[in-house]
């Protein structure tokens, strides 16, 4: 018998192939029509989309072992990017989302992208919190104050970072952002390209709050200040380590903006002269506050097949030893709101506390307004990117 080649055999059994294809297609269609519960067997898997830290093995490995759970975690690079991805349908992918405080209350929950937590289960954990985060904490609750939207854990103040070998803390606090704006200081600082933070601090440097609609005059003033900040910068980078390296080797003396978040690893690495300061004398409308503080909100995504391990994970990260691991994860070191509990506090050494400037934390936080939505963000961001494009022209 003559052997047929592949195409001939295909041609001869086409009817059979069609029959099998139809059966396969029918099978797929039937499978997709199965009750959701049948496919929702996700007891042993969890997906986490978060700022770096929650995705470190120090945090995840013990959870994987204890809950016999396959955990996939991805670090995010910007809050708006993550929010956009959820809006675009990634709620089907993620179980846990970790973002800065205002997003949950202002956008994620109203847009039905996250689900409230079980208050009976989570409220007792709020006893661990520092006084400023006590129940019912504004940013953890829905606008009507009824729903708990997530855990508050890492937090930190933001102003600017300076090399105290060159600029004293007192001088930086008193002169504030004017220091950056002086022509004598051109080429001696770097701009940290965390776009929304650069925008907020430039508004503060221009003398007004970024958290309300701005007048045309104020937007003009913002543009003037932003162009100066960008033009006079030695360089612009989204890499806090590159900026820290510049301070350590003496190329630059400051980072604008700068925060405990971006300075803590350099401090822990033997450079305590690199310090976060929040200038005094901010805009009167912010009660004189001249910095911005952030608090991370960790929530459950409105995933149609939400893993039951999501809530377990949110509870797990509140254990004292895990609080420490979250605070001291790879990449950046930050205080956690659970440091109101002595069991958490005793996890930290003096050197570790000094890395995130714990001794000055109440003072720094008191000079910061809470991170919030920026109503004129599209306009201000366009000014920021235009200034970058036209730098030096």
């Amino acid at each position, binding site marked *: 018998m003559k052997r047929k080649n592949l*195409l001939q055999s*295909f041609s001869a059994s086409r009817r059979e192939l069609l029959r099998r294809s139809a059966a396969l297609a029918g099978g797929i269609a039937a499978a997709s029509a199965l009750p959701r519960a049948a496919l929702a067997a996700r007891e042993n898997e969890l997906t986490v989309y978060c700022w770096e830290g929650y995705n470190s093995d120090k945090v995840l490995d013990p959870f994987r072992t204890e809950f016999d759970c396959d955990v996939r975690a991805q670090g995010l*690079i*910007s809050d*708006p*990017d993550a*929010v*956009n991805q959820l*809006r*675009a349908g990634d709620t089907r992918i993620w179980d846990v989302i970790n973002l800065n405080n205002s997003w949950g209350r202002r956008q994620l929950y109203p847009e039905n992208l996250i689900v409230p937590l079980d208050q009976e289960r989570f409220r007792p954990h709020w006893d661990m919190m520092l006084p400023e985060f006590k129940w019912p904490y504004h940013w953890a609750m829905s606008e009507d104050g009824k729903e708990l939207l997530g855990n508050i854990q890492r937090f930190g103040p933001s102003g600017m970072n300076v090399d105290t070998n060159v600029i004293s803390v007192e001088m930086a606090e008193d002169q504030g952002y004017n220091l950056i704006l002086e022509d004598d200081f051109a080429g001696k600082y*770097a701009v940290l*390209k965390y*776009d*929304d933070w650069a925008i907020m601090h430039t508004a503060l440097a221009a003398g007004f709050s970024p958290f309300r609609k701005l007048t045309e005059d104020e937007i003009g003033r913002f543009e003037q200040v932003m162009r100066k900040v960008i033009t006079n910068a*030695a*360089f*612009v*980078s*989204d*890499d806090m380590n*590159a900026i820290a*390296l*510049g301070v*350590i*080797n*003496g*190329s630059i003396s400051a980072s604008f903006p700068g925060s405990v978040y971006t300075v803590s690893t350099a401090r822990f690495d033997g450079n305590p002269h690199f310090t976060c300061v929040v200038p005094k004398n901010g805009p009167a409308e912010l009660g004189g506050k001249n910095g911005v503080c952030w608090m991370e909100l960790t929530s459950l995504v409105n995933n149609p097949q939400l893993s039951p391990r999501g809530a377990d994970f949110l509870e797990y990260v509140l254990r004292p030893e895990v609080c420490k691991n979250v605070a001291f994860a790879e990449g950046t070191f930050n205080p956690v709101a659970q440091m109101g509990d002595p069991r958490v506090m005793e996890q930290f050494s003096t050197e570790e506390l000094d890395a995130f400037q714990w001794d000055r934390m109440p003072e720094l936080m008191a000079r910061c307004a809470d991170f919030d939505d920026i109503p004129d963000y*599209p306009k201000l*961001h*366009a000014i920021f*990117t*235009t200034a*970058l*494009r*036209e*730098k*030096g*022209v």
Partner: protein
Amino acid sequence: MAQATGIVTITPGQSARAAPEPSGWRAWLRQPGVLTALPMALLMLTGFVAPLLLVVAFAFMPPQSFSILQPPTLANFQEIFANSFYRSFLASLYLAAATTLICMVVCYPVAYAMVRVFGRVAGVLALLITAPLFVADNLRLVGWMLFLVKGGVLSGALQAWFGIATDSMLYTVSATLFGLVYTYLPFMLFPMIMGIAMVPLEMREAAFDLGATRWQVLKEVDIPLAMPGILIGALMTFILAAGALSEPRILGGSSVVMIAQDIQNEFTFAQNWPKGSALSVLMILVAGVLAVTLLRRIDLDGIFGRR
């Protein structure tokens, strides 16, 4: 007997009951070539064409929106042309052209040596040039950052060995260009090797026999005959460099903003997918026009030996 031999003879007047020949698109669809190409065609349609169409659709949606089911608008293009985005395009095109030119000049002698001089060593050399490609370009560029930064490997060595104090060599347009040349050099080198290998030795010998100088052989024989490889390398290098993101960010310190940075900004921090898509469409058009223009001058069939 006829049946025994398997031969059927049809006498005049008899009609064979053969199936009618399919015509038109059905006949076309039954061709083996079409059938075997179908899976790949489907893959390309869903994996390559569909996302591009989505980007094109988004480019015509209202700014700051996240759905393609809205009335189309030209607002994004108007905003792009009214603003200074041309600077990013020009910076990208300028840096890509400079990168391509430098890579050409650097790669030609290397490629020539690998084809004509090094013999078996050429394989080892190719491996050494290829090896860094297995490491993510971000990591390699961070390595260069540590090499070039003030107090880094280079300036530290200059200071320690020769007492020469140098400042940081980073965060300039030159540093960006260096990063681009470093990253995209292999994309020029290997097509160029292929082009040079296509030049028949007999042609060169004939040219020398006829009294041509080395320069004339290079100009009249080597380069024209290697041109398909050179052009493919140039095209790949130019398009990849024009879309570069990491080099201006890591080594350049945003001293120059290339178009990919603007596109990334729109998709991330600006939350403006339509404007990011419109910028992408414009960049695809620029790259597409360039590719079509150059590919018209290249005889791909000749390169792959089909003619």
